[in-house]
């Protein structure tokens, strides 16, 4: 409890601080004439960080290349395995850091942080087993999106804060004849439906594994409660929900076909901007905390961060130059220039309406996405095996038993269970 409170306070300090970090001197780019090669996902906030690094330090480097791809997660392990590695840095998130660490492909950053990390707040250092393995710079989570005009029209008071209130609001909108399916959620079979289960599972206080082991514990009271809550909500979701991920749910929202949504915070600024939608939708869309089971309970969300890692299989000089370049981009100027692209964890960030949902969710004590080596296998099993329940073909118990069975097979094959 104490840890959570301090963490939330730290996060909010990061979120709310407006003191600009004054640069007294030019950026320190570390050793000259090195090769900097960056692999990253493909969205505006990450482009902003790498752009800043390139602007500051590409001149000093012998080579500065970058590969922004949505497939980064699929290729990162293969790309970092050879010595020398294909990239000197990968921009990762919680889940992908675990994937690299499982194979020992990233290096501890403690000495580099000491040398170049003046502008990095201590709470941004991702420490695992005492070593700093990554430096976070932005946050993301799922949370509630609502259309205030429609809630008002349907006679819903206030913004739903619990799952019960969410179901009530959806029912009122349906009863008022405004929309038959007012709710959107990312329920695409596979990773997305697994992730949506995670939200509900964590909100119900679930634990994925027996502590310290790889023994699954999703077939539990929390798991069944999570599935039952999901089923109550799915009732109000678009009939095609099992094929919908972020792009589809965002499109439905922007088309004005939804009034309640559980979507990613990173979609907030894209939804609120003046592209792709009408002012009726954008002006009435409000981003709020993810709902919880009980009032004031754990929000149904997983907190994510994105951050910098440095490859293990590269020379120390390249590692140092890459780290220095990327860290030189994490300034308040960069944040101010790209304020609405992300929920920055850096100085200079002024949370706008697009960041309100993630801030409120983090403040409400949402859990981070678990950084456990075998979580990817569990996530895949959830994504594939819960569909039977959601289609109404099997019971929650049977679906969760299937998840555990599928997980066990895969975890045995991967060596996590014996």
């Amino acid at each position, binding site marked *: 409890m104490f*840890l959570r409170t*301090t*963490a*939330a306070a*730290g996060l909010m300090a990061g979120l709310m601080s407006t003191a600009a970090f004054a640069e007294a001197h030019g950026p320190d780019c570390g050793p000259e004439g090195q090769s900097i090669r960056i692999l990253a996902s493909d969205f505006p906030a990450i482009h902003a960080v790498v752009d800043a690094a390139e602007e500051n330090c590409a001149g000093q480097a012998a080579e500065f290349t970058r590969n922004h791809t949505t497939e980064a*997660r699929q290729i990162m*392990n293969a790309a970092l395995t050879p010595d020398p590695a294909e990239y000197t840095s990968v921009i990762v998130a*919680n889940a992908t850091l675990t*994937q690299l660490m*499982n194979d*020992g492909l990233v290096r501890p950053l403690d000495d580099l942080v000491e040398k170049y990390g003046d502008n990095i707040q201590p709470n*941004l*250092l*991702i*420490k*695992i*087993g005492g070593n700093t393995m990554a430096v*976070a710079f932005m*946050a993301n989570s799922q949370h509630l999106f609502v259309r205030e005009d429609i809630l008002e029209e349907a006679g819903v008071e206030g913004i739903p804060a619990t799952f019960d209130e969410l179901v009530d609001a959806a029912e009122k909108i349906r009863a008022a004849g405004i929309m038959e*399916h007012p709710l959107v959620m990312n329920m695409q*079979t*596979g990773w997305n439906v697994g992730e949506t289960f995670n939200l509900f599972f964590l909100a119900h206080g679930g634990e994925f*594994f027996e*502590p*310290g*082991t790889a023994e699954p514990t999703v077939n539990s009271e929390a798991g069944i409660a999570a599935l039952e809550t999901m089923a109550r909500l799915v009732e109000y979701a678009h*009939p*095609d*929900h*099992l*094929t919908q991920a972020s792009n589809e749910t965002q499109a439905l929202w922007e*088309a004005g076909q939804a009034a309640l949504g559980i979507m990613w915070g990173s979609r907030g600024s894209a939804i609120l901007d003046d592209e792709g939608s009408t002012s009726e939708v954008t002006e009435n869309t409000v981003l709020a905390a993810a709902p919880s089971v009980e009032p004031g309970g754990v929000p149904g969300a997983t907190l994510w*961060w994105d951050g910098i890692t440095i490859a293990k299989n590269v020379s120390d000089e390249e590692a140092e130059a890459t780290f220095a370049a990327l860290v030189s981009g994490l300034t308040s100027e960069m944040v101010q220039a790209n304020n609405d692209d992300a929920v920055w964890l850096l100085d200079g960030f002024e949370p706008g309406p697009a960041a309100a949902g993630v801030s409120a969710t983090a403040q409400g004590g*949402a859990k*981070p996405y678990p*950084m*456990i*080596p*075998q979580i*990817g*296998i569990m*996530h*895949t099993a959830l*994504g*594939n095996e819960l569909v*039977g329940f*959601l*289609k109404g073909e*099997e019971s929650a118990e049977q679906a969760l038993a*299937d998840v555990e*069975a*599928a997980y*066990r*097979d*895969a975890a*045995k*094959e*991967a*060596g996590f269970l*014996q």
Partner: protein
Amino acid sequence: MKNRTFFWFILPTLSAMVLFIALPIVSVFIQSLHIEHEQVLVVSESCGPFGCEQTTEVDLEASAALREAQPLGRFNGFATYTNRAHLAFDEIAEAWRTTEDTGAFLRRVFDLPFYKALTFTLTYTAVVTPLVLVLGLAVAVGVNNLPKLLKGPTIFVSLLPFLVTPLVGSLILFWMVDGDGIIGATLQRLTGDPSLSLKASPTLTWIMLMTYGVWHTLPFSFIVFYAGLQTVPRDTLEAAKIDGASKWQSMRYVTVPHLVPLLTFVSLMLLMDNFRVFEPIVSFQSQAHATSLSWIIFNDLRESGNPLYGSAGATSMMTILGVVILLTPVLIRTWRDFNRKAH
């Protein structure tokens, strides 16, 4: 041909086949018998912007030592083949013991990933293959009877579905059948059911995938049959006409028998292609309602952070076995025909 000459003739082909077909299959088979080393887990603490938590991590040194000792992984025999993700012997036995009637038993069996995928794969093959054969022949005969001026453009247009990349073609159809797409919205209007969704119903999804399959592969059988039709002997056709055969009769007793070797070839190709149906499942996001053997392999290799090489290998071997079983009747037939002609 002398044995010696034959040997030198066949050597380049044979060595290429061994190198690019036989050896990879052997390697996949060996991999399917192994699983990864034990991952030594240690309890540790992870801290970040959202606080600290007890967690586990992989003990890299201990795991590397295990890997060093057994580079291929741990030998697992056929256990991967029989586990729940594949043939699921234990689960089927358990379902047999605990369920009352055949319906319940079958439901349990078809809930298992491998059998679910196998059912769709076989249904898809069994429906799409004959449809494509028959419709391909029909289109070829139709085009063959067109006036010369129209033939060229018609052939070009008929070939278009085959020219579209499968992934793209199915994506386009996927958007068209969306509730807001042209086909989906029209169907909703026609049936008067605003919540009708082709993507939400298992039956409609299956029909959609098979329709796509027929649309996409039809040009292949059409063009082969069309080429075959150009070689039908005119004399025999005229003789049939003089004997008073109707159009249908000369089709049935002259044209089709002439095309039989082609029919065998097209069936072989279609059976192999349809058994590895994959792209439409990804494009249509139909994993909830229909999966195929190839999709399982893709899922094992791609979706989890740890690619499951053993599982993927096992499913690959069983897919190869499936193709062999499917092709055997056609191959036996070809062999018999060949022997008959030789004597």
